[in-house]
């Protein structure tokens, strides 16, 4: 938190985040109700959302959250990859980690840094959710209770979604020596990974379910929010545990 609010780099990241979300909230989310509820767009929106399998979102009492959900569920994982790209690598490169390991275990450092990053991202998710609730209440104050209830549920869902993304950056941080390299490695993982998976499946002739290795694999199935999807929680939570466990193993054997 200190790094985010008390350092120049942290404040710049926060400013960029606030600007992006101001644009999203002002231009997309605040006009959501108008688009969804207007006669002229109602049919088109229903067709569009229906085609995407998202028609259940149109039935939400607070239309703003339909747009918020669609943006947040894709934005925050990408944002987490960027903002959590430097969990330990710069400390390691600088030698600061050597001071820390004389006072705390490597496991504590890995889990401590992970939880710290998760906390920061969770706070930012909650802030955007509250901002959406305020926008909806400004349109119709009677929507406030429903907004808060829906906002809390969706914030929780988004936090679950981002957890393995942050854990992936924890793992990459144990291998690479800079935040930039960690981001490059993550981009390669998400761009080349599916190709490699498809090639393995094709080469051996049957499904190995390697796609389950990729954080965010469940996003498409939970997007419509039509009810509980089996993989909604267990997949990201399992991925998070596996990634953190692997990070801990790598870190324990790493040379500092």
């Amino acid at each position, binding site marked *: 938190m200190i790094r985010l609010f008390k350092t120049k780099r942290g404040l710049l990241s926060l400013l960029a985040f606030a600007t992006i979300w101001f644009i999203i909230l002002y231009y997309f989310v605040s006009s959501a109700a108008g688009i969804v509820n207007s006669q002229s767009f109602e049919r088109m929106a229903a067709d569009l959302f229906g085609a995407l399998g998202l028609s259940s979102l149109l039935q939400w009492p607070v239309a703003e959250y339909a747009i918020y959900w669609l943006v947040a569920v894709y934005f925050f994982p990408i944002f987490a990859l960027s903002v959590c790209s430097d969990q330990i690598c710069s400390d390691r490169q600088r030698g600061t980690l050597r001071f820390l390991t*004389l*006072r705390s275990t490597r496991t504590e450092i890995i889990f401590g840094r992970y939880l710290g990053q998760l906390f920061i991202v969770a706070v930012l998710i909650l802030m955007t959710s509250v901002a959406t609730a305020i926008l909806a209440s400004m349109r119709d104050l009677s929507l406030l209770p429903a907004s808060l209830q829906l906002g809390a549920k969706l914030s929780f869902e988004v936090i679950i979604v981002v957890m393995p993304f942050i854990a992936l950056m924890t793992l990459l941080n144990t291998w690479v020596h800079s935040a930039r390299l960690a981001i490059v490695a993550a981009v390669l993982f998400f761009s080349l990974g599916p190709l490699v998976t498809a090639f393995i499946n094709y080469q051996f002739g049957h499904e190995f379910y390697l796609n389950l290795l990729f954080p965010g694999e469940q996003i498409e199935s939970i997007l419509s929010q039509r009810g509980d999807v089996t993989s909604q929680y267990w997949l990201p939570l399992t991925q998070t545990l596996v990634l953190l466990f692997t990070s801990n193993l790598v870190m324990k054997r790493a040379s500092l």
Partner: protein
Amino acid sequence: MSLIIDVKQLSKHYGDKVALTGVEFSLEKGAPVALVGPNGAGKTTLFSLLCGYIRPSSGTINVLDHAPGSAALFGRLSALPQDAQLDPRFSIATQLNFYARLQGMSSKRAKHDTARVLEMVALSDASNSQPSELSHGMRKRATIAQALLGSPEIVMLDEATAGLDPANAKEIRAIVSEQACDVNFILSSHDLSELERLCDQVLYLEAGQLKQHKAANVNGNTRYITLRMKQDYPEIIATILQLQGVSQVTMTQDKEYLLTVINGQNKTSIEMDLLVLLQQNNWFYAQLINGKTLENQLF
């Protein structure tokens, strides 16, 4: 005397390159220990192994009866690793306070201890400065301060005075001397005169092997006196050899002579005889050292 460090058959390889091989020594509580050796001898590797930053390829290390990196050593072993830097984004007081809290101190005690160690390294006025605002020497002193937090039993300083001006280097040496009664220091430096002043034991590494492990200036049947003169005197060797008890005089370097004295013969008066001889000949000496200099012992 209890062992503070016990190393057995320690080896470390980086791929095909051998950094340390078959290193074996044990250190007891007591005066500071010097870790000496040429560049690339494996000093920093040994430091890193003792601190648990890297794992040995083979062999065992026991530090205060625990494996390096063990949680049981937190607060008991501290170090200044070579080239390690504090985070440039936070003030040095903030970081030292954080380290003190990690060592288990209360908030109030951590604050007090941070002020104490910063005062020791003469950085009280810069406590709220970020490392990026400080000079190289000040940053170094700040990292030395972190090694002194709490009450460590072992403090390892790798090239602690490298890059410091003479006044600050002297200050650091004074800190080591003052604390040496309570803390076991292990120092690595290229400044042999500095190590000579501070350390009683020497670990000499060369090409990854421990060549010498002994208490400085402890010899067998003979003892040594090192004499440094202010000028060159051509007949000085022959003249000193006439003194009773001096069996050999060798010129170790320009204006420096090593006298070999046979134990038991005029043991107490040889220095007096030597000084009288110098005065009679009107020769000016710069320094008289009981024993060999560390430089002469090692090289």
